[in-house]
């Protein structure tokens, strides 16, 4: 899992109007992983994908995929990359199978009806192969986009907001399909607004805002480093003041001194809350209930994009 499949160094993109969409982005993607790129609207996610896939010309920096320069050896690189853009963009009057075959041919692959059947079946589109794309539901159209991107068996697949606008059930179905692709050896980079999606699927997570990468790390490591646990201990009797034995947790009292609140700190997860409970027992403080809440990737993401860029260092 440690071989680098995509190596981006100092990538920048400034549009004609002066907008800087990417500002010195460094990013390395490992072979075989699912990498989730998170960021608010306009953060630079789609621009980053566009720069790698050849949809736009970077203003500076280098991009290497499979050890090849994407500018100079673009033919070889593009043959091995698949892209599912955010928008549903195709000839709506074309039939599903024709459209997928067209994509395969454009990437220089010989016709392979069996492979196309396999792709369509894996995305539950085989029964709709003769249907015009315009006749399909939104979710199926999105699957056609994925089928087109998979038609030439890419080693590196970009999914730009793959589940945008699809219902919860279909979203979970897509997660399963994306997981299956990873299991088959495809490296996947996805951008998403749904933090739950990243939390569910990604091996590593990157957060981008205003064209800068704020953080890249293993998902679990991020949760451990930046996650926090909050605990609310309901006491049997009001406590006049917090005993000094509990000072190190920086507790507060609420609800007329009947609730002891531990707000947690970065990197202090369940274990810190458990130690607190032990300390409360040891201090002889009676309690009748404990509610704990762990911060999600979403909380961490919100914290990061709301101005804690310093954490990137």
């Amino acid at each position: 899992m440690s071989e680098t499949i995509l190596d981006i160094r100092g990538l920048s993109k400034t549009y004609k109007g002066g907008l800087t969409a990417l500002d010195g982005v460094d990013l390395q993607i490992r072979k075989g992983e699912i990498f989730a790129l998170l960021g608010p609207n306009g953060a630079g996610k789609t621009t980053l994908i566009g720069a790698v896939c050849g949809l736009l010309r970077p203003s500076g920096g280098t991009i290497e995929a499979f050890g090849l320069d994407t500018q100079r050896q673009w033919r070889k690189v593009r043959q091995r990359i698949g892209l599912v853009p955010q928008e549903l963009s195709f000839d709506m009057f074309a039939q599903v199978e024709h459209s997928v075959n067209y994509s395969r041919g454009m990437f220089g692959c010989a016709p392979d009806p069996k492979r196309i059947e396999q792709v369509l079946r894996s995305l539950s589109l085989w029964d709709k192969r003769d249907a015009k794309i315009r006749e399909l539901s939104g979710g199926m159209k999105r699957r056609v986009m994925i089928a087109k991107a998979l038609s030439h068996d890419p080693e590196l697949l970009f999914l730009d907001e793959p589940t945008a606008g699809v219902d919860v059930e279909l979203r979970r179905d897509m997660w399963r399909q994306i997981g299956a692709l990873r299991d088959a050896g495809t490296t996947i980079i996805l951008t998403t607004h749904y933090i739950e999606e990243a939390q569910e699927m990604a091996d590593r997570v990157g957060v981008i805002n205003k064209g800068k990468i704020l953080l890249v790390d293993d998902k679990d490591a991020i949760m451990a480093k930046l996650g926090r646990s909050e605990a609310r201990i309901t006491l049997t009797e009001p406590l006049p003041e917090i005993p000094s034995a509990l000072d190190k947790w920086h507790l507060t009292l609420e609800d007329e001194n009947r609730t002891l609140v531990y707000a947690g700190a970065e990197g202090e997860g369940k274990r810190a809350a458990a130690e607190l409970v032990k300390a409360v027992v040891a201090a002889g403080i009676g309690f009748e209930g404990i509610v704990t809440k762990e911060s999600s990737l979403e909380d961490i993401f919100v914290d990061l994009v709301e101005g804690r860029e310093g954490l990137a260092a």
Partner: protein
Amino acid sequence: MNLNLRGAWSILTNELFRFFRTVFGSILSPVLTTSLYIVVFGAAIGSRMDPSQFGGASYGAFIVPGLIMLTLLSESTSNASFGIYMPRFTGAIYELLSAPVGVAETLIGFVGAAAMKSLIIASIILITARLFVDYSIAHPLYAAGYVVLVAAAFSLFGFILGIWADGFEKLSIIPMLILTPLTFLGGTFYSVKMLAEPWRTIAQFNPVFYLINGLRWCFTGHSDVPIGLSLACTLGFVALCIAVIAYIFRTGWRLRG
């Protein structure tokens, strides 16, 4: 440079597939319009015209090359411009830009398909014209080569138009306001020798005049200008279009952000 010929073939066949999907409208409309020209001008009015003014050919036979040229110019331009504009409009252009296809494959695919479509329509019109007009082709091989060259030239022009256009209005404005008038004023229905000065001289500044006369020479063996000049004009136009397209791909103008 290793060409992605499968990619080019894929684009070409996809474009032709799109054409045959709407074959009724694509073919019927230009064939009907041109047939009406031949019937009204060629058969009805033409019978009253003096053949000596048209190099001895009947008026009907005289206008056939002009009408073929009118079809080639308008169909090549609109097919190619629409072919590349639609993926830009729908966003499906992402696939072309992210695929291992370069300028050569793109031109083979889009321009090749547009030229083939217009040649199919021109052939049908030529066959249809035979029902109304007794014409002959004096130089059939030259005629075949010349129509292919003109179809390619205006498909290249249409491709540029499709890249330049940022709306459907712009897509139709050049064919409607420039190409059609130039074709009508370029001698489709008359010989410039019939014009009085200064119109005779002004007509020679019309590039389409040379195209029409080139094809007319292939059909009748007579022309208002030497065939070499017509051929040079067409080849010059092809070279200019290729240079513009090469610039577009090198800079990514209106294609890559």
